[in-house]
């Protein structure tokens, strides 16, 4: 079995951004994503969508290139006004072409 090294991009964001982020991830080139509920605290306080559950976590398995693009997107468009964090980690997969 031969592993391919890829990046896992993890975004944690306030829930109201859900649909918008998914759309933009697809536009940026993501072949798939996994999304789940979360809550948390950080430097930003109140959310507009608190009723409906606080945060979402979106994960994307991607090439380094795509990972950089996603981080850029979040950084430029969302960091200033929204509660959002993003980080990268290294992962290994088999059948790496599925994600690129």
């Amino acid at each position: 079995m031969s592993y391919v090294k890829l990046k896992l991009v993890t975004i944690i964001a306030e829930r109201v951004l859900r649909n918008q982020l998914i759309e933009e991830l697809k536009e940026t080139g993501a072949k798939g994503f996994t999304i789940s509920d979360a809550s948390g605290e950080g430097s930003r306080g109140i959310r507009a969508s608190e009723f409906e559950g606080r945060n979402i976590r979106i994960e994307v398995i991607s090439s380094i290139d795509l990972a950089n693009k996603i981080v850029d997107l979040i950084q430029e468009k969302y960091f200033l006004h929204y509660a959002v964090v993003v980080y990268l980690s290294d992962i290994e997969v088999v059948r790496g072409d599925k994600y690129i």
Partner: protein
Amino acid sequence: MEQLINNFASPVVLAFILGIIAKALKSDLDFPKPLYQSISIYLLLAIGLKGGVELSKTPMVEFAWPALATVFFGIVTPISAFLILRYLGKFDMDNSAGIAAHYGSVSVVTFIAAVSYVESAGLSSEGFMPTLVAILEIPGIIVALMIPLLFSKNKGSIGKALHEVLTGSSIVLLSGGLAIGFIAGPERFNSIEPFFVGGFQGALFLFLLELGMITASRLRDLKKTGVFLVAFGILLPLLHGSLAIIVGLWAGLSVGGATVFAAMVSSGSYIAAPAAVRIALPSANPTLYLTASLGITFPFNIALGIPIYLLIAENIHFILP
């Protein structure tokens, strides 16, 4: 006065207060999110269905003037709110527009509470009132979001925000319920009546308990938002509410109907508007608009505003030609 005390002793208002107390005591009491959502769905459908059934019995002419009055307030209230916030309150463009959008829209729970209050006072409101709620939900948000579109550079996705409001679940459930109730009519409605009518007040009780808990965290933010916003959150609904009573009675509404109309018009949305504003005006501060509409105006209306509107309606009623 007696009516006021009466309102404070009503189970739903007491439930709201219990919610606030629970959070003040730092109790771990917590409504599961799906319960909150389920009751929301239930209340919106129930209100729509009952309204639709009533509507199927109402001559359409009676409905035209009140509908027009609703559109009028949908356009006027966000503008008056915006002007007051921007020029009296010195808020910046985006925050003024963001808060104003909330007061252009409507709080469905305030509406429901007003309907119940009016009934408990031995009066009733017109069957088509829920239709007015559906009409009022949208224009105010649109108008208020247009303002920064014209003046500000800090634009978010207004298109997306509007789609979100128009196809939002409250509009769909409310107008869907209306349509179903209208088509099905009183007889076919019988089968689902025990569920949607019998359980209504109890579900509202639970909902206000949860809203009390949510409001409690907004109350904690009161000191951050300053005294102007507190005064604004109380005086604006009194202003809008009084106007709504006069126009409502003129448009042919009964005393009960005018009271409910005042509650609708003066209330601030706390579900559809916050989500739309967050998307369309990212730089508007959620603490400000949520605290104003949910932390100040909502409890004010539930506890004091609605009885006051009824009082005004009862007295103005005799003066009007």
